[in-house]
């Protein structure tokens, strides 16, 4: 230290204000800086996912649930032509739209086929791509056969070949596991990340997504059958009963998820997500249709209304989870509290 500095400092010691020397080197103590964060900059990065991803989660769930219902009906010997037709074409349309949305969301859409370079069992994104490929193609074959039997392909050799070569029952059963995987793996897709609200709920995310997917699928089928005045009475009765059971299971799983998420579930109730989650997913997507389904006699009008509510609620649920994930990832406090102790999933944890 130079003598001049020493002198300056010793002089300033004589004129201390608030017990400290007045020098420009002395930083102000800022109460905000007492926390453990780096100026509130998020320590992890959120997923870039835009609307295509929650919409895909929604229609993928509808496709999977629809196939589950029609396959179970078929296996129980309940052959309803209208149900089968609605189911086959639903799977076809959802499985045409799903890859479109997913490829649209890629940073380099023209390289989508690189997903098929490799199969990684530990990457839900990889298993999701492959199961989508399988479900889409097998579901497409089933839909082609359906189209042939409906006469949509005309009366030609192709139609006859499709009807003859595609073993419908067997193929339905073979397609089922891929469909179900598409339905529940979307939950694992978001829980296998560093985002606290998603990762915390790893055990219940897949069941919740499948239950919600099935409930939207049943509503979709019931809506289509009611609107087209088709479907046997037995099918509609079974649909109604399944809808009631599934909505209860879904509500239970969402409640359990909220308990499991505990403090990291807060973003779902934040100002920007609460209208969508509480209003859209919980009240109008579960509570209102449940009231309609469980109250009094079943009527066509009530069924249609509850179906529409469940379908909208399912979409709202997926959007609110994705939005909440963004808030959770952007909150340093949430991530640091999650990744500081035993809250985060650990290798030694049991399932």
């Amino acid at each position, binding site marked *: *230290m130079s003598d001049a500095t020493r002198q300056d*400092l*010793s002089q300033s*010691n004589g004129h201390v204000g608030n017990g400290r*020397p007045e020098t420009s*080197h*002395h*930083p102000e103590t800022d109460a905000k*800086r007492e926390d*453990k964060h780096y*100026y509130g900059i998020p*320590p*992890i990065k*959120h*997923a*870039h*996912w835009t609307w295509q991803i929650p919409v895909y989660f929604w229609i993928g769930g509808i496709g999977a649930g629809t196939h589950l219902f029609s396959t179970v*009906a078929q296996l*129980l010997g309940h052959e309803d032509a209208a149900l089968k037709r609605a189911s086959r074409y639903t799977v076809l349309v959802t499985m045409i739209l799903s890859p479109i949305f997913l490829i649209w*969301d*890629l*940073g*380099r*859409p023209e*390289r989508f086929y*690189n*997903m098929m370079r490799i199969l*990684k069992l*530990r*990457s*839900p*994104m990889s298993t999701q*791509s492959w199961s989508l490929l399988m479900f889409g193609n097998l579901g497409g074959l089933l839909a082609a056969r359906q189209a042939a039997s409906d006469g949509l392909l005309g009366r030609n050799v192709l139609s006859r070949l499709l009807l003859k070569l595609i073993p419908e029952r067997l193929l339905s059963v073979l397609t089922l596991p891929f469909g179900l995987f598409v339905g*529940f*793996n979307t*939950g694992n897709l978001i*829980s*296998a*990340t*560093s985002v606290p609200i998603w990762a915390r709920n*790893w*055990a*219940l*995310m*897949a069941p919740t*997504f499948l*239950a919600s997917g*099935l409930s939207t699928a049943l509503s979709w089928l019931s809506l289509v059958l009611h609107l087209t005045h088709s479907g046997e009475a*037995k099918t509609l009765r079974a649909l109604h*009963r399944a809808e009631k*059971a*599934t909505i209860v299971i879904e509500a239970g799983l969402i409640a359990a998820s909220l308990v499991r998420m505990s403090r990291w579930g807060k973003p779902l109730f934040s100002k920007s997500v609460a209208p969508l989650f509480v209003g859209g997913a919980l009240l109008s997507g579960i509570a209102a249709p449940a009231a309609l389904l469980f109250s009094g006699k079943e009527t066509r009008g009530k069924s249609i209304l509850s179906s529409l509510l469940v379908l909208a609620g399912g979409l709202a649920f997926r959007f609110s989870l994705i939005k909440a994930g963004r808030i959770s990832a952007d909150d340093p406090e949430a*991530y640091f509290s999650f*990744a*500081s102790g035993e809250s*985060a*999933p*650990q290798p030694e*944890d049991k*399932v």
Partner: protein
Amino acid sequence: MATGFLTDTTVCIGCKACEVACKQWNQLPADGYEFTGDSYDNTKQLSGTTWRHVAFIENPKKRRLTGDVDLVALAEDVTEPLPGGAELDALGRWAFMSDVCKHCVAAPCQQACPTGSIIRNEFDNVYIQPDICNGCGYCVPACPYGVITQVPNDGRAFKCTLCYDRQIDGLEPACAKACPTNSIMFGDVEDLKELAEERVQQLHDKGYTQAYVWGTPEVGGTGGIEGNHSKFILMDEPETYNLPKHPYLPQEKVKGGVIAGAVAAGVLGAVVALAFRD
């Protein structure tokens, strides 16, 4: 041989030469002229276009400056008793930390990558093959350190390559080469581990008992990540440097999630079957 970094934050002077060298060598675009107003650090964080980032932790403690104060000693944060009975620590600490991809031993980004674009190269570094990445962005939320982002206009994800191209030619990474205080050290991971332990011991002997190595399987490499090839010598809580204390491997629970999903599928299938019973 596994190579990696050892970043000794105790000798970092915050010159940002590593950031500049990295940008130049890897021809990374600018991130725009931003003024955070938080500190002298205006580049904020690691991203797909910032592979080295020097954090400025301006961390004043509520301590008082009294007596005959030696400013040089003050700046060096000397904790030994000072002549004249001067009390020290008044400035708190102005810490710098050059952050970089941690090159995890079990890398979450690599496990998340559905295209196999993210690999471990011959130097055991985590490397994104830019000709394969299709920009799905799934590695971004998987990274427990917020290292990777998808670069706008390009669409692909990028991060530190540990100067793969320079290593092939037998050169050290650009940031380590540029570092004027040798705060960034590059070499064999095993050698760096010993070096880190020696340096921490040295600091402890000097009285800085708070110094420790971050990036070991116990600290910063926890939860299935099994340690980092980029280690750091830190003097404060990891959170001060925007690092998690106890990160975890997100893919650890994929198997459990699939089992849970399969069980749910069985139950829901049974529920649907029961609904058909009259």
